[in-house]
């Protein structure tokens, strides 16, 4: 790493820290103003006494009678020490987070990896075989997937699995939750059960991701294939395969590094839908449930998590960009 690259990356990191601070502040203010935990407590059956509602709200730090800035100040002073407060059901947000994040990561990891690799390969392959039947088939299939919202894709996969199960007479494909509750047996059985539950959620994330990346990759790859420097590489005596792999694919991946960063946004949204539809108790379904319960502390925690992840992937894209694109190193 040369000093220019380090300076560039340090500058970006500082900028991201500033963005994070402003974003956290805004999301705290917005969540506090839009959600009404008081209404949630008052609406309980039987209705709790007013004094108890007041006490509970104050204890959670979400009492709307306390000035907003004071609430935010208290929240920040705890948050910087890693304490994100308590959920509306009085459990620790941190513990809930720890439980949920693992679920989401298990769900996202396989789907994203599979989708990205399949998409890039399909796109590059399509570009190399432009306008042949295989390219057209991949294109039509990608368009069809891109036109199906994630939630609909998940619902359709679930319906398909139900149909298969009906026809088979047993539960061939399981699609509710992360594992069969109360199942016991050897480690192999348990692992197999988890893998079976992963099938549909992974597919619903991977298919959409692959379709998007295949389109981008096909486009950038086509640009590169028609470029002068690739012709120069061929003229220099490189075989077609070597020219495409060492000069073509690498260059075509540079603009993709930006897509990786912003792809996270779409991914997070898609994952929330997928979790909710397949009954996984991850970050996304936590967020959706928390809004229903006016659980300010949990909503803010998910927001902070999302912001950190977006900025982190933005930073990774910068690093990737610096590694792939020599112009960053010299400027």
């Amino acid at each position, binding site marked *: 790493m040369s000093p220019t690259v380090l300076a560039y990356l340090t500058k970006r990191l500082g*900028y991201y820290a500033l*963005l994070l601070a402003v*974003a956290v502040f*805004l*999301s705290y203010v*917005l*969540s506090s103003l*839009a*959600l*009404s935990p008081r209404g949630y407590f008052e609406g309980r059956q039987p209705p709790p006494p007013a004094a108890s509602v007041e006490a509970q709200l104050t204890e959670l730090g979400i009492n709307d009678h306390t000035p907003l800035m004071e609430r935010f100040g208290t929240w920040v002073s705890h948050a910087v020490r890693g304490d994100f407060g308590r959920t509306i059901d009085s459990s620790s947000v941190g513990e809930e987070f720890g439980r949920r994040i693992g679920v989401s990561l298990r769900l996202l990891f396989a789907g994203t990896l599979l989708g990205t690799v399949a998409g890039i390969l399909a796109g590059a392959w399509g570009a190399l075989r*432009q306008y042949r039947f295989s390219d057209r088939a991949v294109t039509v299939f990608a*368009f*069809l997937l*891109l*036109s*199906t*919202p*994630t*939630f*609909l894709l998940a*619902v*359709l996969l679930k*319906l398909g699995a*139900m*149909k298969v199960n*009906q026809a088979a007479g047993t539960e061939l494909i399981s699609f509710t939750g992360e594992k069969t509750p109360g199942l016991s047996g050897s480690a192999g059985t348990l692992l197999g059960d988890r893998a079976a539950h992963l099938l549909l959620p992974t597919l619903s994330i991977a298919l959409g991701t692959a379709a998007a990346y295949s389109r*981008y990759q*096909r*486009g*950038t790859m*086509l640009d590169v*294939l*028609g470029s002068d420097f690739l012709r120069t590489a061929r003229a220099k005596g490189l075989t077609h395969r070597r020219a495409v792999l060492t000069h073509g694919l690498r260059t075509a991946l*540079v*603009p993709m590094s*930006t*897509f990786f960063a*912003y792809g996270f*946004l*779409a991914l*997070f*949204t898609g994952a*929330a*839908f997928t979790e*909710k539809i397949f009954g996984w108790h991850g970050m996304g379904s936590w*967020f*959706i449930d928390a*809004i229903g319960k*006016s659980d300010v502390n949990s909503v803010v925690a*998910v*927001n902070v998590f*999302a*912001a950190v992840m*977006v*900025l982190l992937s933005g930073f990774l894209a*910068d690093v990737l*960009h610096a590694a792939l*694109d020599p*112009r*960053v190193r010299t400027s």
Partner: protein
Amino acid sequence: MTTTATVPTADPAASAPPAARGRGRVALRRFAANRNALTGAVVLLLLFLLAFAGPYLTPWSHTDIDYSALREAPSADHWWGTNRIGQDVYAQVLHGLQKSLLIGLLTALTATVLASVVGACAGYFGGWTDRIMTFFIDLLLVFPAFLIIAIVSPRLRERGWIVFVGLLAVFGWMITARVVRSMTRSLKEREFVRAAQLMGVHPLRIIARHILPNVSSFLIVDATIAVGGAVMSETGLSYFGFGVQPPDVSLGTLIADGSDAALTYPWMFFFAAGLLVVFVLAVNFLGDGLRDALDPTSGHHRTRRRPRRKGTTHDRAAR
């Protein structure tokens, strides 16, 4: 190809140089030759017809309840069947389609206007204007739109769907604005902009007259695709109850209502789901065809389809 024959040759009021019309003709010819794009355009036209004229063909409105027909399969009386409380699915789906189309169009339009104004101003003025606007763009990008819209949705229950359009638009313009910004930065160095500057033309006028027309190809394509994106966001949010609220219906709420019983009563689910996919597919084909037709660099060499030029390397390297 045939329509251009009637274009009058001399129109003193129009300041457009003859090259512009020639370019339009080339674009039209390319568009007409693209089978996917034509199919997309025709399907979209039919869908709009269906959504806005279709409801007049049936005596049922989307709120009518036929107590004698609960969960009834498609018949002569109820073309697409009825749902669990006896509402006509045809009337409901068409009403939902109307709402989703309106939301998609309005969102894309608002977002594109916002993106072109902010992007062009940031790129043209540079300096602190650029820094502040870029910071604002990056800030909005930090949160998935879905999170913020979901958070404020409980407060919007009574306000109706037009506020929902505003929210979708506010979170849907940033990436387009970035591209417009980077395109503006390179346009700014061109001779015709320099000439206008030296003649003392007002900067806002330069942006309106010289910058925006030159990024219009990109904006048209982007706005088209944004319609599909907006409809997908709308239906997703509505599916989880964060978007269009009952008694109003959209394709998203209809899919949510029908999905649980989709295997037993398929008509409650598949009409809404099918129309949604067909609509977005048609929009994407149209957008892709428009890109091929409008992109001046396409057609020269083997590259025909260009990638969606969102957040290009140039954009990142320039900052």
